[in-house]
Structure formats: C-alpha cells, structure tokens
C-alpha cells in the first residue's frame, strides 16, 4: 500500500512537471477494430509518457483518406501522426511529405518487421512509415457447410473449385450464400479484390506503354466469371458490400466462403463477435493455373508529416504503437488472437500466437507470397498487386470500380462495363500525360 501511494505520488509529480510542457499529438486514424483497440489502450502510453497527450480523430476510411491527403498536400499541419496505406507511402515519400522514421529507439528492432511489408514502406533505404498491421488476402470458409456438401477445401484452391463449391453450398431459402465478395465501388474496395483476382486470370491494368488493357480477353474472362458467380451464389445487394459489410454477413453465418483480407481472420474466429467462430477454415487465395494467386499486400501504417514540430514525441508514440511491447499488451488484455497481425516476424515465431491463432501460418504464407513488383502474369510498368502505385489511381480506380459495380448490379453488361472502363482509363491516362 505504501509503495503504491509512493508510486502514485511520484507519478503525479512527474505528471505535474510534465504538464508544464505537455505536448498534444493529434492522431488521424481509421475506424477499424484494431485502431479502436489502440485508442482504448493509450493509457499505457500516456502513463509512460506523461508529457504527451493524445487527441484522436477516428474516421471512416474514405473520409480519413480525403482529410489527410488534403491536409498534407496543402501543408495544413492539422495532424501530427497520420494513418496511411501502403499505396500512399511511396508516393508521399517521393514528394518529401513524410519524415523518415530514424529515431524509433533501440528496442524497436526494425529488422523484425516482415520483409515484404517493410520493403513497401522503405524508399532509398529509409523507413517512412511504421506498419500497424499488415495483410494479404485469403479464402475464409465454413468447414461445417463444406462438410455438409461433401466438399474438401484444398490448401491452394483453384477458381474453378471455388466457383463450383460456392454454387453447391448456396441455399438462398435459408439465407446461406455460397460466396461473399466485394462489390462496393472504390479503388480500395471492389477494385482491390478485382485487380488482384484479374492478376490470377492473367489480366493487367496497363501494358508497358501505359495503355489500358480492359479490351483484352483476360479481363473479360475475369469479370465475366466474377459477375456470373456472384449472381448465382452471392448475397443480395452484393454491389454495395465492401469489406465491412461482408464481415458482418460472414460473422452472422450467411456466407459459405469469403475471399478477403487476412486481418479478418481474427474477427471471424472471435466468439464474442462471430456466430461461426469455431467453424472457420482458411486457404490460400485461388489461382487459375497461370502462376499468380493474386493475393494482395497491404498495411496500415503510422507516419509523420514533414515539417512537424512534434516529431520527437510522434516517433515515441509510433514506436509504442507498432513495437513488440504493444503486441504483448494487447495479448494480455484481449488474448493473442487479437493482436494486430502481419507486421513482425517474431510474432509468427511465437508459439503462444501460433496456438491461439489458427490462421497465423496461412496469413504469413499469403503475405510472403505477394509480389507487388511483378503482380501480373504479363509484364507491367507499375508496382502494386491490388492497386497501381500512381497518384491518379485513386480517382481512376474508383471510376472503374463504379462501372464494375454497375455490372454486378445488372445495370450494364460485362462487355459494356469493360468498354466503358477502357474509355475512362484511356481518357484519364491521356489527361495525366502517361499516353502521349
């Protein structure tokens, strides 16, 4: 008791001393589950760093992206730490908008970061953002429904098997839909999935001269396959389902399969949130025998805008939030299965994690198998599996996503959609000066 009082006393003394020069960090982040958890655990950080206070701006992904991009491009300086994706990091770093993270402290162990994730955040040998969680894509499926239908999911399925199984499992009368896939328009929503899937079908966004390739047969095969499959075995309203909507559907037992981000694995196996927690199996993202699986690579990262006056405190926070101790902290409070995945080699070597997270191996394999430098079967001029790492892609990807979403909703045919996508992208790429 005495010791505790003493400690408390010192703490508050330190806090009081700190208040004189307390620094407030404004952190912009996404409203994803792992970030909300981080927000709730920040007492741990502020008690260790009483001179730093935190203000959170938690927004839906698209709104967040617009807010932080506008702010950093106009040097508005409203945020001290921004949550940004693997897509933004290289583009922003090249503009000199980000501060290299070279002061994360001796305990941070940069070499422990998964090489695939780390290389996407490193430009000219400097780390510009620290990964908070990383993901690839994989198949999540209901073991019970597969058993009932007499099917066995291979570790590395083909698209033909997936489509066949999805149709067999579908039981619309009981609201069981064989497969849930993204359909909501957006470069980070349906186009992430479709671009990655198209890679497996041998398609690509652009040829070596930046000429759009939507008029090629590979795209037609891919989109045709997707639309037909979703019409036969997908849930109603699929054209407005993104990651979050599909997650709810899967958690409430309405999907037989779901191909999406590996990070979802811990949500669908969490008995507190999922009604099918004990019935989920995992497999690699499907292929078509052309040599690409089309599993993507993504990470949500914390970065500091260049010119920040609070860089030192900001780096402290980033080191805390993406460090090894944070993983332990989450494990203590919420169990190992819920730690933010996909960033550190040591996590996947941890026997406790392997035991608690049945999806650990599949996640790691998927992340390691992703190849952003050579995403498609044919050569491409760009980097990125489920996106094209050029600034114009957000607008272009979303516009094409709208067209494909309309094809899924039955508002236009696959051919019309592809013709329209081809026209759109030729126009935008000409405007942006890629096509001379």
């Amino acid at each position: 008791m005495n010791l505790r009082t003493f400690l408390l006393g010192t703490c508050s003394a330190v806090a009081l001393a700190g208040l004189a020069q307390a620094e407030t960090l404004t952190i912009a982040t996404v409203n994803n589950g792992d970030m909300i958890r981080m927000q709730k655990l920040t007492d741990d950080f502020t008690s260790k760093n009483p001179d730093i206070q935190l203000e959170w701006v938690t927004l839906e992904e698209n709104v967040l992206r617009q807010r932080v991009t506008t702010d950093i491009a106009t040097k508005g300086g409203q945020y001290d730490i921004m949550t940004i994706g693997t897509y933004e990091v290289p583009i922003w770093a090249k503009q000199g908008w980000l501060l290299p993270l070279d002061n994360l402290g001796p305990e941070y162990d940069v070499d422990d970061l998964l090489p695939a994730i780390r290389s996407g955040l490193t430009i000219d040998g400097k780390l510009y953002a620290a990964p908070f969680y990383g993901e690839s894509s994989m198949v999540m499926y209901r073991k019970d429904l597969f058993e009932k239908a007499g099917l066995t999911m291979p570790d590395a399925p083909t698209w033909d098997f997936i489509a066949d199984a999805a149709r067999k499992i579908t039981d619309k009368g009981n609201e069981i839909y064989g497969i849930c896939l993204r359909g909501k328009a957006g470069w980070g929503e349906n186009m992430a999935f479709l671009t990655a899937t198209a890679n497996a079908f041998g398609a690509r966004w652009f040829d070596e001269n930046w000429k759009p390739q939507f008029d090629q047969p590979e795209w037609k095969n891919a989109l045709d396959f997707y639309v037909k499959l979703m019409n036969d075995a997908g849930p109603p309203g699929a054209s407005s389902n993104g990651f979050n909507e599909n997650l709810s559907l899967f958690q409430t037992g309405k999907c037989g399969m779901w191909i999406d981000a590996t990070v979802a694995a811990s949500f669908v196996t969490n008995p507190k949130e999922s009604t099918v927690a004990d019935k989920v199996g995992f497999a690699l993202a499907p292929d078509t025998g052309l040599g690409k699986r089309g599993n993507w690579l993504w990470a949500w990262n914390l970065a500091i805008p260049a010119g920040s006056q609070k860089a030192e405190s900001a780096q402290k926070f980033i080191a805390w939030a993406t460090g090894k101790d944070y993983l332990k902290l989450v494990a203590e409070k919420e169990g190992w299965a819920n730690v933010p995945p996909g960033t550190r080699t040591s996590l996947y070597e941890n026997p406790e994690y392997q035991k608690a997270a049945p999806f650990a191996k599949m996640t790691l394999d998927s992340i390691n198998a992703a190849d952003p430098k050579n995403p498609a079967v044919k050569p491409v001029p760009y980097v990125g599996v489920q996106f094209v790492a050029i600034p114009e892609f957000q607008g272009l990807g979303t516009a094409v996503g709208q067209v494909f979403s309309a094809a899924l909703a039955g508002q236009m045919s696959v051919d019309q959609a592809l013709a329209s996508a081809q026209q759109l992208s030729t126009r935008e790429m000409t405007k942006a000066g890629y096509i001379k």
Partner: protein
Amino acid sequence: MATLHTRSAARLMIAPSVLLLLAWMIVPLAMTIYFSLLRYNLLMPGMEEFAGLTNYTYFLTDPAFFQAIFNTLAIVLGVLFITVVGGIGLALLLDQPMFGQGIVRILVIAPFLIMPTVAALVWKNMFMNPVNGLFAWLAKLLGLQPFDFLANAPLLSIILIVAWQWLPFATLILLTALQSLDEEQKEAAQMDGAGAVSRFIYLVLPHLSRAITVVILIQTIFLLSVFAEILVTTNGGPGTQSTNLTFLVYAQALLQFDVGGASAGGIIAVILANIVAFFLMRMIGKTLEA
C-alpha cells in the same frame, strides 16, 4: 420616410452583409477560376502549369456529365414533387380537427431536425439493406424477394430519403398558409354548395400558391447541391446512376485530388445553378410581388 438621410443610413446598414457576401462569393470564386485554368493536382505539387481550357473540355466531355445533369434535375424535381404534393395532403389532413394534433405535428416535424448524414446512414443500413434491413424483412413476410434499393433503384432511393427530410418543411409552411385562410371564406364557399374538390381547386390552391412558390425556392437552393446523402448511400453508383453534379465535382476534388478539374467543374456547376436560379427568380419574383 425615404428621406436622403434615411436612405444613406439604410445603405450603411445593408453594407456589412453585402460586403461580406460579396467577399464570400468573389474570393473563392476568383481562386477557383484561377485554379480551373491550371493543371493542378494536389498529389503532384510543383507541376502546376497553365492549361488553358483543358480542364473545362475534360469536365464537359466526361462520360458522366450529362447523366449528372439529368440526375441533379431528377433529384430536385422528384423531391419537389413528393414534398409539395405530400405536403399539401398532409397540411390538409393536419388542418382538420383531431385528437392530439400537437403530438402529430411533433412527429411530422422531426425528420427536418435530423442531420442528413444520420438520416442517410439510418435509411441505408436499417431500412434499405437487402439482408438486414426492415424492408427486406417486410418483403420476406409478404413472401417476396427482398428488393435491393440502392443497387436497383439508386436514384429513387436517394430521392425518397431526401424527400423524407424535406417533407416536414413543406408541410409546415403549407399548413401555416392553410390556417391563414379565412374560415368565413371557406364557410361561404360551403354555403354556395361548392364541393370539396372545387373548393380545393378554386379557393385553397390559389391561396397556397405563394407558399408553394416559397417551398420550391428554398428547397431548390438546398436540393441542387445534395451531397451527403449520395456519399453515404450509393457513392454515386452503381456506375454513375446516382451521380449528380456536386458529386461529380467531389470525385474530381477528393478522389482524384485534381484541383484544376474540380475547379472547372465547380465553375460549370455555378453557371448551371445560376441558369436555374434565373428562371426560378423570374417565377418567384412574380408571385412574391403580388
């Protein structure tokens, strides 16, 4: 009253508002016109160069441009139609004697007080969602396939949501106007043996014309730039089926971060809005003078 002295005093009193609004209009407008002539993408700073009218050409030839104009007008006209017709009906109903009139009015007024974002979120998720929404449950109850509102009738769904928000506004204005109709006039008409229909056409409707004009004017101003409802529910899709002009400009500004293109779009939208405003003002001006 209008002596020289009071007139200059009046000018002085009007000046602050006029100057402020002038600044509010001109400063952003001038910057927007300037930006609209540049090749200016936020994501590529330092590359700004004079681009002439390129941005305008691209915006006007955007495959979605005419659809966006059509959708803008469809939203304005659709919502106006529902709210004016529904508003007249509701106003006539609420004008009748009944029990608990005050409470009914409280119920009817409520949607007007709701944030557009909240209204759109609630309608999208809890009502129109084809799996978990209430409408889907109702459809299943009746043995029908759930209808996927936002994918199959996106524009109509948005019109419905927006109309729900504006119906109270129209109802209340029309109700106030109705209540000012002379009780004696109504009775006199009744004495003359005029039926309910002819009383409505010859007495009530002319009396309401002024109120209807006001409803149309105020709502049009807000409806031309409907945005939050579209962003939250359909994101302009599927395809561009629910993209209006404001949303098209938004896509340029905050998805492509093409400030030049968005500025050109903004200028075009302002011009179009002013054309609409011109006709509206002529129509309104006449009724309001009377």
